[in-house]
């Protein structure tokens, strides 16, 4: 099969697209993680009016359509939009920004779930030792780190496999913003099915690798406890 040949021969175009896709999605998962994990912590630990509704809303946004996010971010960062001056449209930074927004709900939501899973003894102990709220949150996040890492990896997976934001914000520019999913869309429409297939196989392999990594983490945790 020619698709496998393309992978085996490390076709420079395929390698380049793959590395770019990983870089952009990792960056967006990292950016989203930096914001969403503390945010999830705050939502979980604070009591406030409408908390249940907020969490419901966040969970609804798990399946936010990628093209909708793409359109919103496009209007936001287009020259005529409010953030037009940043020159983000049709650039990798714009894609990172857009994908970070896309995966935020899933990260906040999963962080909340992860933290809720840590029993109250941990919290109570930290509190009785005189910890501030932030210290408690950090303690609990440490306790739930495997689940939190899982949230980040899931965000990475969603960013890597989505096509709406990548296409509308990145513009599928060769050698600049072309990533695995947009390349698959383009090559398929151009009738280059082997190349599409090769890129698809790579995409699946990355997902598999992420999953194995996740399992290893979780396995080690169980073995320790």
């Amino acid at each position, binding site marked *: 099969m020619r698709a496998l040949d393309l992978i085996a021969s490390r076709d420079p175009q395929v390698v380049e697209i793959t590395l770019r896709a990983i870089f952009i999605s990792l*960056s967006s998962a990292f*950016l989203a993680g*930096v*914001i969403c994990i*503390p*945010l999830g912590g*705050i939502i979980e630990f*604070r009591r406030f009016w409408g908390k249940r509704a907020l969490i419901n809303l966040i969970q609804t946004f798990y399946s936010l359509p990628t093209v909708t996010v793409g359109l919103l971010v496009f209007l936001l960062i*287009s*020259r*005529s*939009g409010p953030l*037009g*001056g*940043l*020159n*983000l*449209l*049709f*650039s*990798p*930074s714009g894609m*990172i*920004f857009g994908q970070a927004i896309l995966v935020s709900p899933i990260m906040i939501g999963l962080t909340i779930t992860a933290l809720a899973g840590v029993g109250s003894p941990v919290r109570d102990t930290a509190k009785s030792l005189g910890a*501030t*709220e*932030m210290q408690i949150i950090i303690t609990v996040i440490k306790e739930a780190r495997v689940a939190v890492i899982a949230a980040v990896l899931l965000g990475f997976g969603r960013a890597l496999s989505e096509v709406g934001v990548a296409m509308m914000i990145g*513009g*599928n*520019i*060769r*050698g*600049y*913003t072309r990533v695995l999913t947009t390349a698959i869309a383009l090559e398929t*429409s*151009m*009738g280059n099915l082997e190349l599409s297939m090769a890129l698809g196989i790579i995409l699946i392999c990355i997902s598999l690798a992420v999953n194995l990594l996740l399992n290893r983490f979780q396995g080690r945790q169980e073995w320790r406890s």
Partner: protein
Amino acid sequence: MARNFLKMALVLMALSVLCSAAWAVDGERLKVATTTSLQDTGLLDLIKDKFDEKYNVSLDVVSGGTGIAIQYGERGDVDVLMVHDKERELKFIKDEQGLERRCIAYNYFLLVGPKDDPAGIKGMNASSAMARIMEKGLADPAKVMFVSRGDNSGTHAREKLIWKKAGYNYSAVNTSGPWYIEAGQGMGATLNMANEKQAYTISDMSTFMAYQGNLTLVPIIDGGSDLLNVYVAMAVNPKKHPNVNCKLANEFINYLVSDEGQDLIASYGTEKFGTPLFSAASGSCELIGCSAAECAVPTSASCW
């Protein structure tokens, strides 16, 4: 405390966005929005390689239909447009969104369809052929179908123009029955769909030839002034959009209309398809309905 954390997160977010923005502006970039036909055929990849090397810049090509390309131009998101819909081009210039219209290349649209030509349109002109397709399609939609781009592209605009010429109101045509299929996709995808359904469609010549290997459809009608297809480059007006890279945009357009650029366009495809996909605009200005000013070299647009 929590507020501090939030502040920190916001600062971090701003920082990372700024950092990545700074990282993105290494070297000059020129953003070009193009119709799919120039990109999918590979012509712009070739032009990009030559132009990047010569001017030591990076040509960023965003491909979509003429409709979305003009949108990008009106929002100031790109520096140059390469499109093919005269009516909207003239409006773009009139609205002072663009500087000058420069004709760079031309070829013809083709009305392609199944080899056995179930509607029997061979030898007709484009508008009467479309009328016949509609008539036969309404009578027997299982046998005669038409796939439309349906995406506001230049090709779609031409299709509407032909319907108008044939005496039909487009909004009545596209809702008249199952024989009329709106793909809402690029030219390549539309050709593939027409091929699957063994339907007729209108395609620019270059995309059809680039995809021909995967298709059983054949050109049924070619040539004729109804099907003339002229590609145009326009720089986005810096008076409306001060951020555009007008200087480099003009340089790019000058490169396209230069002898070197025109040769590149006129010879592209000979190697792969045995015949060029586009004709150079220079020397045929009158034939393709462009004024002398629209073919003048170099472009006289100034950037203020």
